[in-house]
């Protein structure tokens, strides 16, 4: 069985809590708060005004640039306010507030569950539809999907790699989506293959999801040019570069995009959204998220409209468990800790809500680095985390750049593995931001000199 070739760690997957829980729809909220930044890139620009009546699926905000994404209304009702909101991660972003009235859908959306296999659209039309639907990578990065489908001039995609790895511990939303909507995902794959002009797709799934491997393999056997690749369990296999390495044995060079080695990677949830957008005219208005944790009463996978306060979903799962220390948006390896759960709307990047108890939430006191080299062994990018952290302490940005800090993918393997509990990433992350700023300045200066 294949896997990626450098580093990696084996955290306990803890998926037993919410695995195989059927996707349950979360009821509509009274008020929806829709942030206009739910993707990487420029904020979306509101196209509605206060007082406007909107239906489900109507455009609320349009992409604010090439790398940006549309935002459709996930609810029907009246726009009551357009203004800033501060989310539970501490970021202040523009948002549209809607008082929910009923559940009236835009008439061109096909709400039936009928499978529509045929897609006669041209590649350009498919990509336009994906862009219009506001689809972004639902694996966590939220990179606008249509941008990935438009390779830069001179580059050609050869293979579509479908990310069904879900390497983050605890999360099971992609697993359950494959179990319940495998057919739709297969059609979505064929649509993306057509859009990219490739004849080969590989679905990578880690072998802790044997039923999903079996089911997707059975479905893939009825398809042309789709294969399922079971992968050895290892974090961070769902990282784009790691997955490409695992599936086709090619390593994306430093600073380059996957297209450099002829690959385009999309998550299964993203592909499901592509199916709904292209075949059913349904924009991206909801996603499946996992609510889980060792002490959660009813851990499960919930289909949530964006803008729904996460407290509503948490209530479905039995409420915030007693002795909760941390609430994580996402998984334990890369998810972001939330300060509170109130007034925090579900959004495109929230793949799960994880509750850690007080004991799990404590970071042990760091000790001296014992130079064991385990962080070097664990780093999937082949970096030297101990050294980068030391260089950060010395504020030696030049050496940090030379030691390839920009290649760091934030996966957290170094911190996970460090026996001395050193907060390596707490230094590498700001160091990377600083070096990135220096690089941009240098590029701007070089451009000005020309």
């Amino acid at each position, binding site marked *: 069985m294949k896997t990626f070739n*450098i580093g990696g*760690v084996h*955290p306990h997957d803890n998926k037993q809590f919410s695995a195989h829980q059927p996707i349950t729809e979360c009821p509509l909220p009274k008020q929806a708060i829709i942030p206009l930044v739910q993707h990487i890139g420029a904020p979306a620009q509101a196209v509605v005004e206060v007082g406007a009546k909107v239906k489900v699926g109507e455009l609320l905000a349009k992409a604010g640039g090439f790398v940006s994404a549309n935002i459709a209304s996930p609810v029907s009702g009246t726009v009551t306010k357009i203004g800033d909101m501060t989310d539970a991660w*501490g970021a202040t972003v523009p948002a549209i507030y809607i008082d929910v009235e009923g559940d009236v859908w835009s008439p061109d959306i096909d709400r039936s569950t009928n499978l529509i296999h045929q897609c006669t659209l041209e590649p350009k039309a498919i990509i336009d539809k994906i862009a219009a639907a506001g689809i972004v990578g639902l694996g966590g990065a939220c990179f606008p999907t249509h941008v990935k489908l438009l390779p830069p001039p001179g580059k050609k995609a050869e293979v579509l790699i479908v990310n069904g790895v879900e390497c983050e*511990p605890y999360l099971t939303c992609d697993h359950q989506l494959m179990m319940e909507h495998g057919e739709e995902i297969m059609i979505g794959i064929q649509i993306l293959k057509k859009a990219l002009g490739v004849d080969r797709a590989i679905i990578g799934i880690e072998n802790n999801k044997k039923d999903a491997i079996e089911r997707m393999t059975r479905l893939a056997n009825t398809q042309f040019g789709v294969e399922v690749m079971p992968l050895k369990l290892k974090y961070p296999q769902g990282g784009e*570069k790691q997955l490409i*390495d695992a599936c086709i044995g090619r*390593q*994306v*060079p*430093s600073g*380059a995009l996957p297209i450099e080695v002829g690959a385009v990677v999309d998550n299964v949830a993203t592909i499901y959204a592509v199916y709904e957008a292209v075949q059913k005219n349904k924009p991206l208005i909801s996603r499946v998220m996992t609510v889980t944790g060792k002490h959660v009463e009813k851990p499960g996978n919930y289909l949530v409209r964006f803008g729904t306060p996460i407290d509503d979903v948490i209530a479905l799962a039995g409420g*915030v468990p007693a002795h909760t*220390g*941390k*609430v*994580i948006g996402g998984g*334990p*390896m*890369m*998810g972001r*800790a*939330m*300060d*509170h*759960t*109130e007034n925090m709307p579900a959004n495109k990047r929230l793949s799960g809500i*994880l509750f*850690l108890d007080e004991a*799990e*939430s404590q970071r*042990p006191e760091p*000790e*001296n680095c*014992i*130079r*064991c*080299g385990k962080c*070097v*062994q664990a*780093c*999937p*990018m*082949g*970096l*030297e985390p*101990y050294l980068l952290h030391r260089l950060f302490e010395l504020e030696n940005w030049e050496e940090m750049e030379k*030691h390839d800090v920009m*290649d760091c993918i934030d996966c*957290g393997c170094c*911190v*996970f*593995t460090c*026996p*001395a*509990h050193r*907060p390596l*990433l*707490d230094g590498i*992350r700001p160091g990377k931001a600083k070096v990135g700023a220096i690089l941009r300045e240098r590029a701007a200066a070089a451009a000005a000199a020309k």
Partner: protein
Amino acid sequence: MKNFIVAPAPHAHSGDSVRRNMLLVILALLPAYVVAVLQFGCGALITAAISIVACVGCEWLVSRFILKENRNTIGDLSAVLTGLLLAYNLPSNIEWWIVVIGAIVAIGVGKMTFGGLGQNLFNPALVGRVFLLISFPVQMTTWPLPKGMETAYLDAETGATPLALLKQAVKNGGRIADQLPSLHDAFMGAIGGSMGEVCALALIIGGVFLICTRVITWHIPVSIIATVALWAAATGWLGLLPADLTTGNYVAYSLCTGGIMLGAFFMATDYVTSPMTAWGKLIFGVGIGVIVMVIRTWGAYPEGMSFAILIMNACVPLLNKFRPKRFGEPKKA
């Protein structure tokens, strides 16, 4: 509104700790300790106890009264490990005050002067050992014979070590086979020597345990052992061995006697004083293997493992310049 703990990712940890690694190394050293007690009697018990108590005590005193640190680093067990390793490198019948001096040099000079665990350039136990070897050459090279439990502490009856015999034989020729212990005895530990180094089998068991539990990687022990074996074999192929010693036997004696196994699995692999990357570790191991055989063949001492490791310790900052292979890095043409 309830506020929760906010900290940057990751929010999970492997559960590994400095203490756990030290504890596993101590566990891996226990088979050799059992052999030492069986071979050398209560002297092995006493020497190890003195060494550990002296090392831990020294670390506590230095951190408490000289460095004035609030945090107690005794709990990480690294001083216990240094004490045990120092004892393993001493004859079991050595006087207690020599052990204490060794411990003070190991911890005080070898470790705490650099700033404590993680900061030292040289393996502390070996710093202590080499200091004693130079300061007390007679006591440090007067090993008791393995006589089992009857051996009294401070028993003075001693014999020449196999390595000294081998060195003479390779240098001067002549018959040697009847003076050497049997290979079986050398492998099982029924030979004279420092208390922890005599039983190759026990040390290999411990070493394999450390590799399997991922406390250490294979690179350093394998490269040291391979280099020593290759050098010994080359000596035989070049016809430099006495007539009654086959190349195979010379390789086996070179590996099973002296400090090769203890050094390769337990001393050279010390985290703090060994390189961080795979290539660095391999070069480090080869360097140790070469230096130890140079000393054994041409040096003044019959054994050179301690010196070899200390010399290569000094090269570690340089060896750390060997980067790991970056993801996506093109193969060098």
